[in-house]
């Protein structure tokens, strides 16, 4: 059984879990496995399906506890800033050179033609927007589908996230939100690039009952064929 704990330790080290926390988890796990062994219980009775894959088990535990350190270190961040600075300098030099060239040729009388703007299209045939989700603020409780009760203390607002899930830029996206029976809100977002999203925040009206419905709809954009995710409804009961 200690083999399992050792494999977990190796995985936590690889994931850069702080040593003290890794020690704590390893000790708890080892003690539980020893007690189970003394009871005649199998590893699977303690670990469930995790018994077959110690690395996945260790990673899941650390992830759920939120103790996996990010991979990027300060050294890499510094290197990133240096690269970014170099890029900015290059862009500046190119623009400056262009300006100088432009001034040098300003005496020319040749008619100028505007550079054609490339169509705002990226590869990919799918076009469309989707509602991603909603949450209650300030406690930031997510509204899951089918959830009826939100245990939020004095909820003040609802945040709704929608975005571009297609492969082409959406020049103008429209979102309509209805809260309760009498409150409707309209939002627009310009130039949503693929895989981007926007979140709107709506202050809850004071006259809302403790149970109400939230409806969010994005208007289909030209060419959109799959409108399945353009509408979401949440039935909300505000708890204590």
């Amino acid at each position, binding site marked *: 059984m200690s083999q399992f704990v050792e494999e977990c330790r190796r995985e936590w080290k690889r994931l850069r879990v702080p040593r003290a926390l890794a020690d704590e988890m390893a000790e708890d796990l080892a003690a539980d496995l020893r007690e189970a062994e003394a009871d005649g219980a*199998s590893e*699977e009775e303690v670990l469930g*399906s995790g018994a077959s894959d110690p690395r996945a088990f260790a990673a899941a535990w650390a992830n759920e506890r939120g103790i996996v350190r990010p991979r990027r270190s300060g050294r890499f961040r510094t290197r990133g800033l240096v690269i970014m600075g170099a890029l900015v300098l290059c862009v500046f030099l190119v623009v400056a050179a262009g300006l100088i060239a432009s001034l040098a040729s300003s005496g020319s009388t040749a008619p100028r033609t505007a550079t054609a703007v490339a169509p705002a299209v990226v590869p990919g045939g799918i076009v469309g927007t989707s509602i991603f989700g909603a949450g209650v603020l300030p406690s930031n409780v997510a509204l899951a589908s089918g959830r009826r009760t939100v*245990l939020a203390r004095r909820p003040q607002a609802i945040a709704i996230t929608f975005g571009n899930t297609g492969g082409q830029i959406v020049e103008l996206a429209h979102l309509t939100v209805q809260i309760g029976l009498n409150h409707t809100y309209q939002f627009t977002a310009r130039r949503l690039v693929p895989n981007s999203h926007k979140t709107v925040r709506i202050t809850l009206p004071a006259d809302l009952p403790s149970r109400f419905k939230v409806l969010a709809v994005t208007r289909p954009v030209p060419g959109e064929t799959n409108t399945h995710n353009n509408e979401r409804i949440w039935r909300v009961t505000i708890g204590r």
Partner: protein
Amino acid sequence: MAVEERRRSQLLRGVLDLCLLAVMDEGPAYGYEMTKRLRARGLPIVGEGSIYPLLGRLESAGLVDTYRAESDGGPPRKYYTPSPRGRRALAAGVAEWRATRDSVDAVLGLVEAEVYP
């Protein structure tokens, strides 16, 4: 995995956090102790996801309080108990589970009458 096992696993996955909060609400418990309490109620976790990541999730969500103490003659263990927020989540979850169970029963109950051995 058989269809029945997979269904049981999926059903349990949605409520295992509530079951953990419920058994630790009976009295502070460490990991394996919770497993034993679940097993004593006919809910072995063999074949299911482990409770440890779930305990980690409950902890990071602030739904449990923890402390370390000596177990009965054994090494110090990490004991879990529901936080006030965890107790509210448990109450809401139980209500949600019962409402869901009743709704499903209302549908499946009709089917049961037509099934012959």
